């Protein structure tokens, strides 16, 4: 495929990311939200790979970058399942603390994902009705597109306008998901959607000469995400026994 065709294909895939974010916002079941996140990560991986084959791009660096969303798509559901089960284990009291709790967690981990999926079916609701959520999402997307095209109008950066629009849209949609959803796992998915926007911007918007720097920063951002998923979220769920936001609001900001 020629350069412009690849570019257009990548832009179409970028818009697909926005549509998936819209679905994440409108979906009411956590199981589906997590699946949609995985699909979004796979689409992002394909955008990164397509970009790597465009003329003037650093194939190796971008190819390496594709590993990040792919890895996250594979491990995030398992880590979320682990964190969710911590809340259930703490609430059920089916352990006697210490070694007993460890044994319970270990046995629970075997079927962790399936067990968590059953719990996720009961969560994923939003504060606002679906129609209003969708309307706000559409407004955010329109704002992002307008802002990006206005910024790029008649300037040398015009070629990146569609990707810039998609990045800003993902950022705003992710933030809205974080605010609108009732449970902490969905909030994390919102954060990961914001993360996808950042990935897209680093790969498609950053000048090619500086792309490696932004790639480096993305690795660190993944580290932050892992700190949340491996340490803070399970601890929070374990100590509060719930994944609902209202159950984790003893401190009042």
């Amino acid at each position, binding site marked *: 495929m020629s350069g412009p065709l690849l570019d257009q294909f990548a832009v179409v895939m970028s818009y697909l990311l926005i549509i998936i974010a819209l679905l994440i916002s409108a979906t009411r079941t956590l199981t589906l939200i997590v699946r949609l996140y995985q699909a979004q990560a796979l689409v992002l991986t394909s955008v990164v790979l397509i970009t790597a084959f465009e003329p003037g791009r650093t194939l190796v660096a971008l190819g390496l970058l594709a590993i990040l969303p792919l890895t996250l798509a594979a491990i995030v559901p398992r880590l979320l399942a682990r964190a969710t089960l911590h809340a259930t284990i703490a609430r059920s009291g089916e352990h006697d603390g210490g070694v007993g709790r460890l044994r319970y967690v270990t046995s629970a981990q075997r079927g962790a994902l399936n067990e968590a999926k059953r719990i996720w079916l009961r969560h994923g609701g939003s504060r606002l009705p679906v129609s209003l959520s969708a309307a706000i999402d559409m407004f955010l997307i329109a704002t992002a597109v307008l*802002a990006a095209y*206005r*910024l790029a109008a008649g*300037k*040398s*950066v015009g070629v*990146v306008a569609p990707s810039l629009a998609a*990045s*800003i849209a993902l*950022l705003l949609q992710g*933030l809205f998901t*974080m605010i609108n959803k009732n449970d*902490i796992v969905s*909030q994390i998915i919102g*954060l990961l959607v*914001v*993360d996808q*926007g*950042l990935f897209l*911007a*680093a790969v498609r*918007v*950053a*000048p090619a*000469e*500086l792309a490696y*720097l*932004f790639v*480096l*920063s993305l690795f*660190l*951002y993944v*580290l*932050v*995400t892992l*700190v*949340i998923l491996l*340490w*803070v*979220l399970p*601890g*929070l769920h*374990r*100590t*509060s026994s719930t994944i609902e936001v209202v159950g*984790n*609001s*003893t*401190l009042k*900001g």
Partner: protein
Amino acid sequence: MSLSPAFLAKLLLLLPLSAAALVWLPMLGRLSGRGRSAQARTRAPNRLQDYITTGTSVISTALTLALAATDHKPQHFPVLFIDMDVDSLSIYFLILVGVVAMMASFYIGPYLSRHHEGKPGRQALFYSLFNLFHLTMVLVPMVSNLVILWIGIELTTITSTALIVVEGTRRHFEAAWKYIVITSTGIIFALLGTLFLALAQSATPTHPSMAWPNLVVPIAHHFNPSLVRLSFLFVLVGYGTKAGLAPMHTWLPDAHGEAAYPVSALLSGVLLKSALYVILRFITITNASLGNAMFTSNVMLITGLISLVFATPLILKRSPFKRTLAYHSLEHMGIISVGIGIGGPIALFGALLHVLNHGVTKSLMFLAYGNVQDQYPARAASMAPGKPSRAGAEDEYVGVIRAMPATGWMLALGGLALVGSPPFSIFLSELIILWGGVHRLIQAPGLWLTFSIAVFVTSITMIFGGLVRHLGRMLLGEPDTCPERETARRIVPLLLLFVLVLVLGVTVPAAGLLNLQRLLDQSVHIVCGGICR
């Protein structure tokens, strides 16, 4: 071996990194301590870890002062593959990091002995994380690449989150959760803002750069102005979240309120300023690119005023004392932003001086209050089973001045300093900012600046009464219990901080070991970038 500024700066990075590793060594020794009692085995590592951490922070402060005593010429040097650039502004922020980290380090040992006695693993982890946190805050003012700078700020988030989570209770996890999620989300805006700055360079004839020394030169005039403005707004939202500026401040009272008090001192005294340091670098770049300071001034002024307006009712309402102190951080970051927003050499001088003054005073308050929390058994009495819980009930200490005279007086005088009472340091910097504002008003009268100064004066006046009321309840009266005796270890650092608060309230040292006035003048010149009116 030459003690060049670059070498000193490298040592500043190496020391806390080494200390973070060394504090684990005693844990190895524990494995071979079979013949000693369990208590002796627990105490010995704690003492060694304490010496390593306090020793490191004392030497770091000495090295920073040695760096400040040099001629302040910008230094460029690589560390591994990372380019570092140290100028007067960097040194000024390094001094703040050094002083506050040193004072806070003296309280880690006592804090861990009281709260985590018999848990050597957790103690080692705490010491190690504290040193890593120190390292990240030293790294930020030195790094020249804006993307690496972003990474440095993210590293401060990771280490400080770990320092909160290590306590392991529900409240700590919740505070850490809010902190890391809100600041990490905010910081994405900062990275996008940085990316927009990279994109703004597309029209320049040269290779795009992310090193701030390259972005403040005349080539910056070729940048795309719309993208530069958008970049600054994103950066301000991102780093502003981390700096605790309203309305992105909601993590601040939880994290500062729940963290161990030496960590709270660092979070409030230094971490917020690390984010502010990055904003200052972006202000210089944006001004250089746009050719004037109008845009950044207005944005900073609006942000500062919003923070002041948010902070006032929060401080006036009754909250647990540490949370009230955290709300004061919001107020003081607002004051600094207003000073930067007013602009001009006078107000900028005041704003930068306020950075140091607030850092030192707030550390004094957090550490003194930590003394009360650790040594005052009233908490248990006021939280008796069956007694209804209400806001602030968990720290209903009474008669602190009678029970713990030294700590009580430090809290009283530190509180007066914090609300801007003369003859203390914050009064001086607030006065300089106000003077800068009036000076600008005389030069160019305008409704917007008049309104801003009026809001600034009204807020700080109202806030004055708020903290005095809080402190009065805690400090006066008869203590209902007998706290433990105050030790020199817990008092001397407070006295040193108080001496600083007092000296900086009377003068800005212009001679001797630390020529603070010259350092500040040069920092103002750097932030102005030659276009200050």
